[in-house]
């Protein structure tokens, strides 16, 4: 056991010292050290920091997460339960942040496609991955990203050569299972698509135990070359006490297209930051999101799109359903830089409050320094539509079913955007399972 320390910075420093002692030939030695120093300078964010005003990370600061404790073994049945039906895919399974080859189903990959665990890439001195990590992290990272850099040990590296279309979706299944003391893992995903390459990546975070108080502090980097296309799905369905902090950081070259779907459907505290830089003309980002929270759950999405050059596009649609005493935060920043004429940026965030004690803080933030742009945004917070409820009830649908039906209809507008049928169907069921009268409305799906 490590010495009892109260201060989270000291705690992470002592965990770091322990980790470093276990690593040989670490290609990231300098980066880790620098990141830890930057982290130590700020500490974990407090509510005084604007970007963390509504999200209190005290529950994380209070827990002294262990970094190196191994996960207990899990069996295939538990993995099957969170797989996406019969989706044919390249799949990497991680348990508490560590790659598990036995549980994974990578399959053969065609030439020009490389999918491997980050641990394997780091161990391979020819991979050069050490020098490339961090390439997509802009200035808008936060203390948790620094922690990720300091502590990362595993994750995935996906590289697709120019002109190659990955035949099957790539699925990263991050499973969390309870440990004796709460543990933290800091996985990193690095995706690089060459010119004209295309891929679909699913990053699914699933909690296997409601008793687990573990933290997943994950970072994804996405590098898209000219005309590359990535469909990215992030699904967080943590156990009742799980903490998830994650960020997706993308750089997009000319005519590239990133379609991001972020679905936060469970866990104690879930925070996802999405930062994308549209660095060349024709770059487009689509941001779709859905969060559904209940009880005392807390979910936070902070998105930032940097339009750096002319003729770049962003379309953002986020929806949230809140019940119980839950809380949701949405902050969508669109930053149109001075040269970014002809930017087309649309953003909307709609929230459905199913209880009087749920709370949402939604803030679109448009910073526009170019004059010839098309930008729109809208944020709404509302209850179920009384007219629609009455209409359904007048058609013999009982009140509870009618409410579920309307809630499902609201949420499914986001889910319907998911092109991969097995994933869409699974999410439809996850959404349905959160609603009363599931059986009655199951027919509508």
């Amino acid at each position, binding site marked *: 056991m490590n010495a009892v320390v109260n201060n989270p910075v000291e705690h992470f420093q002592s965990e770091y010292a322990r980790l470093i002692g276990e690593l040989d030939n670490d290609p990231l030695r300098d980066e880790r050290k620098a990141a830890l120093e930057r982290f130590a300078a700020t500490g974990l964010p407090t509510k005084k920091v604007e970007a963390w005003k509504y999200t209190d990370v005290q529950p994380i600061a209070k827990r002294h997460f262990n970094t190196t404790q191994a996960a207990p073994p899990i069996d295939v049945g538990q993995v099957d339960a969170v797989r996406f039906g019969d989706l044919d895919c390249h799949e990497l399974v991680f348990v508490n942040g560590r790659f598990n080859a036995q549980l994974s189903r990578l399959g053969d990959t065609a030439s020009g496609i490389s999918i491997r665990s980050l641990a394997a890439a780091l161990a391979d001195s020819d991979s050069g991955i050490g020098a490339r990590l961090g390439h997509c992290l802009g200035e808008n990272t936060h203390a948790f990203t620094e922690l990720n850099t300091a502590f990362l040990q595993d994750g995935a590296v996906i590289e697709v050569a120019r002109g190659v279309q990955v035949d099957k979706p790539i699925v990263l299944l991050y499973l969390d299972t309870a440990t004796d003391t709460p543990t933290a893992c800091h996985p990193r995903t690095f995706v690089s698509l060459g010119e004209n390459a295309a891929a679909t990546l699913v990053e699914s975070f699933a909690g296997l135990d409601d008793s687990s108080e573990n933290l997943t502090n994950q970072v994804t980097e996405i590098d898209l070359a000219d005309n590359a296309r990535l469909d990215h799905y992030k699904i967080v369905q943590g156990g009742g006490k799980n903490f998830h902090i994650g960020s997706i950081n993308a750089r997009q070259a000319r005519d590239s297209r990133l379609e991001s779907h972020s679905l936060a459907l469970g866990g104690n505290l879930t925070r996802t930051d999405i930062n994308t830089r549209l660095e060349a003309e024709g770059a487009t980002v689509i941001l779709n999101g859905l969060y559904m929270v209940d009880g005392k759950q807390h979910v936070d999405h902070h998105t930032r799109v940097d339009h750096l050059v002319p003729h770049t596009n962003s379309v953002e649609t986020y929806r949230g359903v809140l019940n119980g005493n839950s809380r949701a935060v949405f902050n969508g920043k669109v930053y149109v830089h001075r040269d970014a004429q002809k930017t087309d940026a649309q953003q909307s965030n709609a929230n459905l409050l199913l209880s009087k004690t749920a709370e949402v803080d939604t803030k679109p933030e448009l910073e526009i320094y170019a004059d010839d742009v098309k930008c729109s945004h809208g944020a709404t917070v509302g209850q179920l539509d009384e007219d629609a409820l009455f209409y359904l009830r007048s058609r*013999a649908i009982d*009140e509870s079913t*009618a409410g579920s039906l309307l809630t499902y209809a609201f949420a*499914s*507008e986001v889910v319907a955007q998911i092109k991969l049928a097995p994933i869409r169907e699974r999410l439809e069921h996850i959404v349905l399972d959160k609603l009363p009268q599931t059986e009655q409305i199951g027919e509508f799906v």
Partner: protein
Amino acid sequence: MLSIKNLHAQVDDTDILKGVDLEIKPGEIHAIMGPNGSGKSTLANVLAGRDDYTVTAGEILFEGQNLADMAPEERACAGLFLAFQYPVEIPGVNNIYLLKAALNAIRKSRGEDALDAVEFMKLVRERMKLVKLNEDLLNRSVNEGFSGGEKKRNEIFQMAVLEPKLAILDETDSGLDIDALKIVAEGVNAMRSPERSMILVTHYQRLLDYIKPDHVHVLADGKIIKSGDEQLAKELEERGYEWVKQEAAAA
């Protein structure tokens, strides 16, 4: 079938219905006409059970049951149907699935088995013909993007499938072109039976040329101030409401 006695109702503390009396026997068709804002839709909504309307006095008996005790869905199960003046658009809820759920909820409340998909679709195809509903509308979201006329036809189509005992048609004729009006009226006539009663709320005598009412009532300022037969509708068409109001004021 329906007995309304001295019905008073409020919205937001404003009295809208101020003592409505109405008796409807099985098989009868009653037309209710009256100026804008007189309370016709309020009456329809109160009958269907909308809860932002408060009944402050009087009672409504539907087949001997006191409606005040029943939720909207229970009223629907008991055989009441409201064709809305402004049918609501419900994005994301499929039109045909809603209808199936509605029908099966009603059947269940009567102790009947749910119709399976094949039986249901057979019924749907048959009833669609009654109002010449465009098949494309079946699989769209409820009323979403429907034209005004399509919405009204969809209401009558729902009625035809659900086979209520009492149908309240709130201005189903408004917004229909001449051909659509004829088609909808034919659909309604096809649904007429000695057991089924209807209330037609309308501004236009024209509808009553196609659907012959047994009784015509004038609702003004929250009260039925005159009742008669279809001749009354013709007179209203010619002379407006003022003379009826004056007659009522004098009495």
